[in-house]
């Protein structure tokens, strides 16, 4: 890894690497194909969830599992977009950390608020009879 002597601009925060043109193109092509494949798999899972819903006895556990898989695949996609297309992976380490560490807040953010929503639902189901009725109707009749 060779560093250029004169930085082009003070805002340039990543070491200037001398990627060969060939290597760059290979990397972009690889990432594009990878993103496309992940998207196709996601769509496949989406359609699988649809057929499970249409089926006679939708298994909620299975649907939840597939939804979890799509979430993981999306995170993988996000990683490739950020690290290759936005080349955050090539920046200096402190720069990466100053962007990624604050984003850790999302872990608490997501968990806390989904939990909160879920608890609101449970409370209403226990104490608000009108709300509870709707839930029972939904389970007995129709579905999707």
């Amino acid at each position: 890894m060779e560093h250029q002597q004169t930085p082009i601009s003070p805002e340039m925060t990543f070491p200037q690497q001398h990627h060969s043109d060939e290597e760059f193109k290979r990397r972009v092509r690889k990432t594009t194909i990878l993103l496309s494949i992940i998207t196709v798999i996601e769509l496949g899972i989406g359609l699988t969830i649809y057929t499970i819903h249409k089926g006679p006895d939708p298994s909620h556990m299975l649907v939840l599992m597939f939804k979890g898989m799509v979430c993981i695949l999306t995170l993988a996609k996000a990683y490739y977009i950020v690290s290759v297309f936005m080349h955050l992976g090539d920046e200096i380490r402190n720069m990466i950390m100053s962007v990624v560490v604050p984003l850790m807040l999302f872990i608490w953010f997501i968990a806390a608020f989904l939990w909160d929503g879920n608890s609101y639902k449970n409370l209403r189901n226990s104490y608000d009879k009108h709300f509870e009725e709707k839930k029972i109707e939904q389970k007995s009749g129709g579905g999707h």
Partner: protein
Amino acid sequence: MMWYFLMSDAFTFGAFLISYGSIRFSQNFWADPNVVFNALPGAGHKNLPLAFVSVMTFILIISSVTMVLGVHAGHKGDRKGVIKWLLWTILGGIAFLSCQAWEWHHLITGEHAVLADGKIELIGQTMGGNPWGRLVDGTAVTDALKNTSVQTLASMVHEHHADMNMTDLLKMPQDKLIGMIDLAETHIREKGPIAFGGYFFGITGFHGFHVFSGVIINIVMLIMTWKGVFDRRGHYLMIEKAGLYWHFVDLVWVFVFLCFYLI
């Protein structure tokens, strides 16, 4: 600095999506995305879940790739290359926005039969309500049909018998119209959770606005490149920053796609 702006923007989008998730978790029923998003331009009433949105997703991914190539051309100081790839990226952005305009239009104007207050109504997907509640059938529907206006019944018949003239249908008596409605084919639902419309249009609209401003930024970059501003400056760093913004828009779409269309 661009990175810190993008980080703050990520929190804005994150907060929107999490608030949507929180409301969704608090409901006993939520609209199934495969039922809501099943149309494709030119395909009429065919049921094609996920088809159109996958086109939109690929358009955005490809435009992100052309932006990478544009930024790379900028590193090499290749003015023609930058112009070429920026043009493709702008085209991708405009294509995406057009798709979104069609989708919104289709959702708002496409009317679906819902059972509300003991009668059937035709409503589209708007901020005030959505027609994607749970399916109703049996006596509830037959009772509700008797209370439904001739106007609504005529529209429902017209949907499946496009050969019949609307003015003729409107002259028919109510019970005859009811007899013409094929109950096996008409999926009548309850109204779904109201919050869906606000969140869907709010979040995809906010994202669409980002795409729009990204296209404007890219057009400005294109003009500056054209005039040789970056050649005189000696570097193409501005293209780099516009590229970061554009990739961020793609990144946000990945999550919007996940939250609204897949799960």
